[in-house]
């Protein structure tokens, strides 16, 4: 799922001074980023839960167009299934919850798709991607990149001063989620729809078939879950309270009371 970039905005960024000054006035995270972030987080949770529920009705994966219990799988997950027709080696069958799970999956998919589109359009128009997510050329050179990787590996992290910016690994991770994984999940999801495939057969054909699409959708989920785990871990390391505050209110530190005009 797409996760919206700004959560673990980094205190690990190299150029702190200018940004720190700027952050006094402007919110760390724009309202549009905060709103889309939390809708996406909620949708991701719904999609993951309902996706797992649907998956356990057939925890076998195939490559190509077709695949069923009479055919050789590409691989099988070693878990029990919610259908008696699937041989799993377990002596029991899990309860079937596919009805609501499927409906929730598609409703959350619509919600996250529309939210993602809003985020992307707002990010392109407002310069969020250019300003906050595209790594600078210098950051991408071997030396700078490997220093950032080494810093992360050694947990050399959050300095006291806070930057309204992301470090290069963060930028690359967020860009990959927004512009590679998110579209891939939409594409492989649509490639499993018989109606959509009748509109554009290449949606499935380019992936090798509808079962290939299902298998790639599964691996995409694994990558997104890994991303979310690392994302939450980094937020934890960078200071959970201040990061959460920043993503909810827009400001990392408690704001001095703003005089309200009554």
């Amino acid at each position: 799922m797409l996760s919206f970039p700004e959560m673990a905005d980094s205190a690990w960024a190299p150029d702190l001074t200018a940004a720190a000054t700027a952050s006094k006035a402007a919110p760390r995270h724009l309202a549009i980023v905060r709103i889309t972030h939390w809708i996406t987080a909620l949708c991701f949770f719904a999609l993951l839960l309902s996706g797992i529920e649907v998956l356990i009705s057939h925890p076998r994966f195939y490559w190509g167009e077709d695949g069923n219990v009479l055919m050789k799988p590409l691989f099988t997950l070693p878990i029990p299934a919610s259908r008696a027709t699937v041989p799993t080696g377990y002596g029991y069958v899990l309860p079937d919850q596919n009805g609501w799970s499927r409906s929730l999956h598609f409703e959350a998919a619509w919600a996250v798709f529309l939210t993602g589109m809003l985020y992307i359009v707002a990010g392109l128009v407002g310069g969020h991607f250019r300003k906050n997510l595209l790594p600078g050329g210098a950051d991408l050179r071997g030396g700078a990149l490997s220093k950032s990787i080494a810093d992360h590996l050694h947990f050399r992290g959050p300095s006291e001063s806070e930057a309204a910016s992301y470090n290069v690994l963060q930028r690359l991770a967020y860009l990959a989620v927004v512009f590679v994984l998110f579209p891939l999940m939409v594409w492989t999801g649509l490639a499993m729809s018989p109606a959509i495939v009748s509109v554009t057969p290449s949606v499935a054909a380019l992936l090798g078939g509808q079962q290939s699409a299902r298998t790639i959708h599964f691996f995409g989920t694994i990558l997104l879950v890994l991303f979310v785990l690392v994302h939450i871990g980094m937020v934890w390391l960078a200071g959970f309270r201040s990061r959460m505050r920043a993503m909810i209110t827009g400001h990392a530190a408690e704001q001095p009371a703003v005089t309200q005009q009554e």
Partner: protein
Amino acid sequence: MSQLSRRKLITTAVGATAGASGIAMAARLAGRNGLMPPEWHGVFGPGDTMTYAAQKLLTRRTMAREFPRDRISKAPFANAFAPLTEEFKGLQAGGFAEWRLVIGGMVARPASLSLADIRSYPSRNQITHLACEEGWSYVAEWIGAPLFQVLDAVGVRPQAKYVVYESIEKGASDSIDMADALHPQTFLAYGMNGGELPISFGGPLRMRVPRQLGYKNLKFINRLTVTDSIKDLPPAGAYSWYAGI
């Protein structure tokens, strides 16, 4: 109340009213153009409605992919079904000579067709993918009479919007909208992979709707009812009515 918050309040109210009437107008427009599913309410109503509307707009003239013969699955899977009833076994013993497809509802000439009657319509075949909502699938050749030919013969009344089809299995029924019912790939299927349609795959007569998931392809069809409203919508928590996904 300050100027600012009053202005905010008015803006919000105007915005909310505009939004609500916009949604209401969109719903009316969608309804007039056949883009509202019968299942539009409830918690999952918005998702079901958006999927149905989007796919109905996109699939007006599309055909499910058809595959070359060498892509037919070597091992199609029939799935489990409820034990056959005595009624079914009796018909089976008679070689299904007494099997009838009863057609009624909003039609000019209600009919009761034998399998021979259905076979007398020009036969068509398609090699298409059948995907179960569980995740498995197979490619098979289906042989049958396109449903639109049978509907043309009985004369569908103009106000009709859906075709309800029932199985000889107790309580098993489903329905599709007129666009899907009249689609050239929607078959009353009686043959599979060059032979008779095996009982495990729904023989002697099965509904084949290749642009929707497997569960819309009901087995053992013996009744069609043409109607303008669906009375038996799936209960809450069941698979959604429209399965183009």
